[in-house]
């Protein structure tokens, strides 16, 4: 009978493995685990045989005492399915427990814009570091390396890549309802900015919407300060909040005040969003952001940002729509008020059946900026379409092909073809 059980264990191996043969990423890990399991079963059988020989009951009693977890056979989600590091089950026994992951992409671009060269370029190389310092304290770092346009020029010669600390956050969690953190964030007043960060692979498209473009001036992409966040018990609405206080925009308004606030006037923000139980997949929210900005001596303005988003967080279909209005009230010299708006709508659809790896998508975006706004001087408006196709090569890499048509005020319409392979590792 014992031999029969061993046969059962061995026979079950190919049956267990076969259904996932298509998922080659996990086969080696699974086979290793199954082998360990077989070893455990064989040891258990040996014990049972010994027990039988000794005339005692072969039935294995469930242990009553607290068990030690089989550490060698259990991996953290990231460890087994994504190289985010490994951790034993339960709370990590040692702190800090650093895990590292990365995102990167390689691109090809070709446009009919006069004076712009076609060709390949290396996208951002992003390292993501996550470490638990205790059960309730977590640190996150996100570092990007971006190719420069002027390597080897200057004295000393410029390096080939710019290094940037995109996010650096330490967070203390009391419970689901109250978490407080300090650091450099992606400003949580925009869905795209906080959903995809610098992970090109995570987003369906190649390009980000212009309103949250890296290095762009429309939305303050980064925020340096403190953030309180959490969930609010509110029935099935599943309300979440972020309340932040920070430095706001720096003298270069596309950058956060990393070194300090340039006008001794803190920015604050409130963000509320809901993910209702029904319909499952819907998310919507709204934000308010307030700051006083000083981009140049003698030029001060109050900045109000109101934004909102509605998202269907699935892929059949995918739907993302965002809107933001930015009001600048100049408070030096002649007082004036300027309102700029930006919005976009993106739809995608993961094809069914054998075409499930393919996902066509389309996005329309629009930006209106008054030419007389002194804060956004030189920032162009935009009306543009993006249509593309994403193909997921594996669970962790994708190929994307995209056509863009963009019109800016007082400029010639530009068409372009873009390709990208993006991945996480």
């Amino acid at each position, binding site marked *: 009978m014992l031999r029969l059980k061993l046969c059962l264990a061995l026979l079950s191996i190919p049956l267990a493995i076969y259904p996932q043969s298509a*998922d080659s990423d996990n086969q080696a890990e699974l086979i290793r685990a199954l082998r360990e399991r077989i070893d455990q079963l064989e040891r258990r059988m040996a014990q049972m045989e010994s027990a039988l020989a000794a005339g005692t009951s072969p039935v294995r009693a*469930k242990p009553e005492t607290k068990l030690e977890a089989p550490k060698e056979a259990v991996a953290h*989600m990231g460890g087994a399915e994504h190289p*985010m590091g490994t951790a034993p*089950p339960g709370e990590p026994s040692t702190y800090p427990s650093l895990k590292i992951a990365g995102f990167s992409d390689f691109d090809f671009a070709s446009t009919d814009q006069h004076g712009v060269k076609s060709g390949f370029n290396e996208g951002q190389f992003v390292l993501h570091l996550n470490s638990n310092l205790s059960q309730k304290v977590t640190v996150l770092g996100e570092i990007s390396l971006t190719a420069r346009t002027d390597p080897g020029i200057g004295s000393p010669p410029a390096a080939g890549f710019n290094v940037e600390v995109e996010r650096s956050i330490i967070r203390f969690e009391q419970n689901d309802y109250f978490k407080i953190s300090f650091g450099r964030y992606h400003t949580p007043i925009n869905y795209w900015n906080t959903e995809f960060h610098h992970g090109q692979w*995570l987003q369906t498209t190649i390009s980000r919407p212009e309103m949250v473009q890296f290095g762009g001036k429309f939305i303050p992409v980064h925020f340096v300060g403190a953030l309180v966040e959490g969930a609010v018990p509110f029935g099935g609405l599943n309300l979440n909040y972020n309340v932040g206080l920070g430095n706001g925009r720096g003298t270069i308004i596309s950058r956060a005040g990393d070194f300090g606030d340039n006008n001794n006037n803190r920015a604050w923000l409130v963000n509320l969003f809901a993910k209702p139980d029904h319909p499952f997949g819907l998310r919507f929210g709204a934000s308010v952001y307030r700051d006083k900005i000083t981009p140049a001596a003698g030029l001060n303005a109050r900045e109000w940002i109101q934004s909102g988003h509605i998202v269907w967080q699935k892929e059949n279909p995918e739907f993302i729509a965002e809107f933001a209005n930015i009001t600048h009230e100049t408070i030096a010299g002649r007082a004036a008020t300027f309102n700029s708006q930006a919005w976009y709508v993106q739809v995608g659809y993961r094809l069914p059946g054998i075409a499930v790896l393919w996902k066509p998508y389309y996005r329309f975006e629009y930006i209106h900026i008054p030419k007389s706004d002194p804060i956004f001087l030189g920032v162009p408006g935009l009306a543009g379409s993006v249509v593309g196709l994403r193909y997921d090569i594996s669970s962790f890499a994708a190929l994307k092909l995209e056509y863009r048509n963009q019109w800016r005020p007082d400029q010639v319409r530009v068409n372009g073809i873009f390709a990208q392979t993006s991945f996480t590792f």
Partner: protein
Amino acid sequence: MSTVSKLAAVAMLSLSLAAAPSDVAVVVRADTPVDNLSFADVRKLFMGDRQYWTSNLRVTLLIREPAARERDVVVKTLYGMTEAQFRQYWISKIFRLEASIGPKIVYSSDMAAELVTAVPGAVTFMDSSVVPKSLKILKIDSRLPGEKGYRLH
């Protein structure tokens, strides 16, 4: 009975068992301060939107390895995702710092049961027919596995 006959019988038995799977139970340690959850609450739990049972007891998710039937049921029914979407979901959730740690993977029901016993706050899902008596099966919308209207199967 010859060895070949025994193997054939075992194979038939395996297939017949596979053809009639039990409901999938959500299982916690006996001292976990919860007995009944709504389906939406179970979804929040496994999607990492609820990470604490109480302020002093963190939820530790244990999930089965890819291709396990219990995992398929949970990924499709609770998450409403494919396996690839499920992986991307957790990578992006950790990337956004919405969760500091993702689910841990277990490779058998025995292993899941042992870890739930060993780790305070751990929750897993397993075939309801193999849940040890020492563990607590959570009701979902006041229904236990096997009862009419139970949704995880």
